[in-house]
């Protein structure tokens, strides 16, 4: 059954001009990964703030980006999220025409006082992945990381993982495979099997749709792994040891609330990390065949503060 066609947002006790939040997603919002995270955040604004929401899975061509931003801004959207660094140029081009609209950019560290209404939001996946790497190196024989394409949100998470693993054991075998697309679940699964054949027993997939193939391999070959961006336990209930939850919604609702009230006065770009423990956190799977032991969880907890304080640089260049 489809969603009901456009109905006015629950108006309730909203002021005359409803608060509108829009999303430009670079891929299908049901991908169980990157795009879905943003979509769910948008839904949170609807439920928590009574915002009127709109999203568009924008054609992946720069020509489309600017138009989509304008289409939203023209309709009075005050909060528009471009979910990916690729939207930066377009946001910067459009923003000066809509001073009353804030343009947020995911996986971006953009901040430029001359375009104060464009704000980069980076959720640092390398931090939880550092913890994953750490766990893998403690518990496993080797790890395989499977990415869709080589872009920063992906490669940074892998850098974090490798750094975490090498913190335990500099010789811990861990390699990265890129698929070159976001849709090929079969290749993702095959890449996972390659790692397993090569002796690895930990997998981490960060490839949107294609990531399903990685979970599938965990399940079928019974090796450990982690869930990315949300609770993926059901995809491999015995094998997933922990999920990295990116509750983008929690982070965004804050911001949106401030935007709505007119109190949002940014002075820098925004970084979400483990320190924002309602936005980025790890949930262990108690139902796993071999849950992460308590001592290890304690060690990981100790890492958190070091990461947050900057003592550990999860993004340190690998080799």
């Amino acid at each position, binding site marked *: 059954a489809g*969603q009901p066609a456009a109905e006015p947002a629950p108006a309730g006790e909203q002021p005359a001009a409803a608060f509108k939040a829009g999303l430009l997603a670079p891929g299908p919002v049901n991908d169980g990964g990157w795009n879905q995270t943003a979509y769910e955040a948008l839904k949170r604004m609807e439920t928590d703030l009574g915002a009127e929401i709109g999203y568009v899975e924008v054609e992946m*061509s720069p020509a489309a980006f600017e138009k989509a931003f304008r289409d939203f801004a023209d309709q009075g959207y005050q909060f528009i999220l471009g979910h990916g660094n690729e939207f930066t*140029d377009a946001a910067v081009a459009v923003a000066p025409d809509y001073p009353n609209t804030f343009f947020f950019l995911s996986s971006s560290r953009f901040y430029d006082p001359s375009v104060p209404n464009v704000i980069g939001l980076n959720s640092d996946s390398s931090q939880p992945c550092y913890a994953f790497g750490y766990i893998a190196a403690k518990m496993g024989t080797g790890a395989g990381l499977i990415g869709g394409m080589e872009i920063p949100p992906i490669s940074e998470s892998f850098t974090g993982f490798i750094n975490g693993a090498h913190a335990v054991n500099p010789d811990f075998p861990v390699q990265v495979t890129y698929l070159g697309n976001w849709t090929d679940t079969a290749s993702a699964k095959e890449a996972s099997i390659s790692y397993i054949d090569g002796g690895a027993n930990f997998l981490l997939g960060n490839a949107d749709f294609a990531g399903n193939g990685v979970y599938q391999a965990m399940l079928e070959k019974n090796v450990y792994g982690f869930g990315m961006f949300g609770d993926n336990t059901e995809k491999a209930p015995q094998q997933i040891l922990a999920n990295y939850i990116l509750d983008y919604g929690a982070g965004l609702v804050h911001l949106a609330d401030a935007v709505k009230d007119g109190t949002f006065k940014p002075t820098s770009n925004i970084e979400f990390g483990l320190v924002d423990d309602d936005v980025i956190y790890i949930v262990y799977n108690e139902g796993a065949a071999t849950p992460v032991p308590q001592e290890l969880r304690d060690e990981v907890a100790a890492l958190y503060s070091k990461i947050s304080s900057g003592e550990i640089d999860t993004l340190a260049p690998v080799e």
Partner: protein
Amino acid sequence: MDFVSIKKRLLKFSRSAWTPFAAIPIALGIGAIVLLIAGYNPLQAYAAMWQGAFKDRTAITEVLIKATPLIFIGAGLAVAFRCSIWNIGAEGQFYAGAVAATAVGIYLGDLPRFLLVPLVLIAGASSGALWGMLAAFLKNRFGANEVVTTIMLNYIAIFITGWLVTGPMIETAGLFAQTAKISQNAWLWRFLPPTRLHTGFILAVVVALVLYIIIFKTSLGYTIRAVGINPEAARYAGINVKRKVLLAMAISGGAAGLGGAVEVAAISYRLYQLISPGYGFDGIAVSLLVNNNPLGVIFSGILFGALRSGAEVMQMNAKVPSVLVFLIQGLVVLSVVAFGVYSYVSKEKEE
């Protein structure tokens, strides 16, 4: 040329050019049924779509902007298809053009504008042409089927681009998988501010026009069509068939490459891994839709641009997944085909 024959020609042309438009209602009708089944309100969806494409001057110019790469690619493909070369590789040729244009736009960025802009466009066109000629060469020299080679060359071009933007050409900050911005001197003129309508669109129309003239009015076009229809007879008439195949692929690839260059120089100003959302494949339909007539491509390109442009607003406002637009595009193509056959039959009866 007397008045009657001019009128006859105009009539004939408008008939062929408008066929796709006449077929749209059919496609939309079927789309509406699908929408209804899935629980959406088709009227609302289509109203949003119409809004998105035509609500004001900006929206219309955005349609033209979206149509631009399709016109370049479609007009080029019309030439290849007229020569009976099934170039499925416009996607790769578009990438090749975008890459070369970006390289020139960045590394020769100090050149003055009047030099740099043409250089960027020439680089894009020639790089696309070369990529296309590679397939023609393999066909001529080894008899390698171009359907296969151009598909393979698509993948290879996309992977090379991916490598360039994550490796050698990555922006100096080295953060994101994209190149630096090309020099401002390479930017195409946006002549209708505040809209983004740029000279690239004009260029696309001119290219389509020129290719139309070449195909139908010149002896070169005569040879290309002759080779496409009957290579044996063309050879007998003294036409060097292999050279025409090479040329047709050069034109086709060149137009696609020029499209890539324009996309970079007018819109994105830099290169990404996925600079094309599948223009090369849409271009096939854009060209075939109007029976491989480069002039008709202007219309079908705009039609596809409008559908795409409208689909995004449809998703924004009517919450209908924009993937639906692929379905509608496909249905448009099929109904045009059916329509074309129908009008052909009725024409036969008239006579």
